[in-house]
């Protein structure tokens, strides 16, 4: 069986990649994808700690991940709807051009 730290390392690297995408890209859709990567890395941690934890009988980590996946889906839907709404007003999805609060 693979040790716990390998999974935590994968999770940390995936979080870093998602973070880099969220802070360096200009396209808002890719920024949302980076946030989804970060959520997936958090899910990875939940599952790894559940699998290696002492309470193997109660599926607590799995429950947390189920709710996280639901929240991630809701976040993606609302976020992409926001991007489309901004695009309708400003004709852009580049974040550096969305610098005005006035509609």
């Amino acid at each position, binding site marked *: 069986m*693979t*040790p*716990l*730290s*390998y*999974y*935590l*390392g*994968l999770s*940390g690297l*995936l*979080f*870093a*990649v998602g*973070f*880099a*995408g969220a*802070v*360096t*890209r*200009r396209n808002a*859709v*890719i920024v949302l*994808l980076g946030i*989804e*990567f970060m959520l*997936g890395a958090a*899910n*990875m941690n939940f*599952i*790894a700690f559940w*699998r*290696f934890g*002492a309470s*193997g009988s*109660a*599926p607590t980590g*799995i*429950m947390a*991940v*189920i*709710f996280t996946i639901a929240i*991630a*889906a*809701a*976040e*993606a*839907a609302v976020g*992409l*709807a926001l*991007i*489309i*709404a901004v*695009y*309708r007003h400003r*004709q852009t*999805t*580049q*974040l*550096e051009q969305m610098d005005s609060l006035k509609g």
Partner: protein
Amino acid sequence: MPNKITFCLTVVFTLSAAVAAIRLRNPVHCALSAALAFAGLAVAFLGLDAEFIAFAQILVYVGAISILSIFAVLLTRGTEVEPTAAVFSRSWITGIAITLGTAAAILVPIFSSSILYKIAPAVASAPVQMIGTELMTHYLLPMEVMGLLLTSALIGAVVIAMSDRPEKKDDSSHPSVTRYPSAESKPATKRDLTTV
């Protein structure tokens, strides 16, 4: 040992797909690479004996969120960057520095702690029947709240993305035509239609 080989292949696949998803120039390619990365994450979940989560990950992330991203990219067509334009923001050096700091803050404690070689208990399984029972007993209230949240998010997404222009009423008989206007050709064609 084959476990570790499988895991290393999964790590390489997932991370390279994730890096491609944030590095590629075309947003559609980014969304497709992100689907690959999510699939690799699902394989890692399978290696952790969480079959239900792996399949939920495939269904929700690969099936729904990636496709939703592709839809968003295609609905916002006309904003794709020119071959010479920058894909990354002006402050990307700062972003990379913060990212490296974050990665170090996460990875250094992990690989210097005593959990480095913790081996999993032999048996840990969560069959779907047990997950369902838990959802209907211990986690009943969170599940109801989650259903409410998903419903409100769905309605909110529709309301936000809906067109709010005043001439929406006479367009309502052709929602598929007028719901997502492309950049600037729409008013002209509409005027042409009304004059004809």
